[in-house]
């Protein structure tokens, strides 16, 4: 299979994730869509690693997975905190930081 096919799939997944981040309101689903975008990046990294025949891209993908896990943990902690304080679980309602 040509490497280009994998890259096209990764570009499409990235764009689906971007559309989700822009349109959905539930912060849980926004986090899921961020995961989609990170995974698209992972797929591209591993495709390029295969294209060059070197393992460096795979290490990079592994590190991205670690970063994604950190992001999930902090994001879910924030959502649980919001729920505990009876704040609306909605990204549009959380606008106190707007200037």
């Amino acid at each position: 299979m040509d490497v280009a096919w994998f890259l096209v799939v990764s570009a499409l997944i990235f764009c689906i994730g971007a559309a989700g981040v822009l349109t959905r309101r539930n912060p849980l689903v926004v986090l899921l869509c961020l995961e989609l975008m990170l995974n698209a990046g992972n797929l591209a990294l591993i495709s390029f690693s295969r294209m060059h025949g070197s393992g460096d891209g795979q290490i990079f993908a592994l590190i991205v997975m670690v970063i994604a896990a950190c992001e999930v943990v902090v994001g879910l902690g924030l959502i649980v905190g919001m729920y505990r304080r009876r704040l609306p679980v909605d990204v549009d309602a959380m606008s106190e930081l707007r200037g």
Partner: protein
Amino acid sequence: MWFEDLMFFVAAALALAGAFGVVVLRNPFYSVLSLVVHLIALAILFLLLHAQFIAAAQVVVYAGAVMVLYVFVVAYVGGVEDDRDRDPGVVGQLGPLFALFLAVELVIALLGTGLSALDTGGAEIEAGFGSPAEIGELLLRKMLVPFEAASFLLLVAAVGAVVLARKRRGLPDEGIV
């Protein structure tokens, strides 16, 4: 050879369908399940690219552990469904259009590059490519600093999550509204 092609198309279709499901499904619980399908399909794609260790880590760590965390939080918060009737706003209306333009642009950029190796199956690789042994050696020799930085970051994130989600003493639950 034809089997690899078939696996690619099945896995790519599943990955795209799963990704689409995450965005379109209204109930967050179904979105999480759709993401699990997406992640497992991606693991198949990784296997096709000879990244066995990453594929295994994807299934065990991502589709296993991280998704369980999501399911717990969805169960805790309760599946808050998105309100269909509410005005989506400018960003919500232009978001899909922006994503469509981004997709077209990315595909044009990818297929229009001068990278001649894109239209091949990739470079020649030796037998141990992507195996745990090679990944481990790279992590502990060439990439030691990123590896240690990542472990430190995980520690910081774990402490941060505990600080964020714990119950604060002296501060009522509905403290800042």
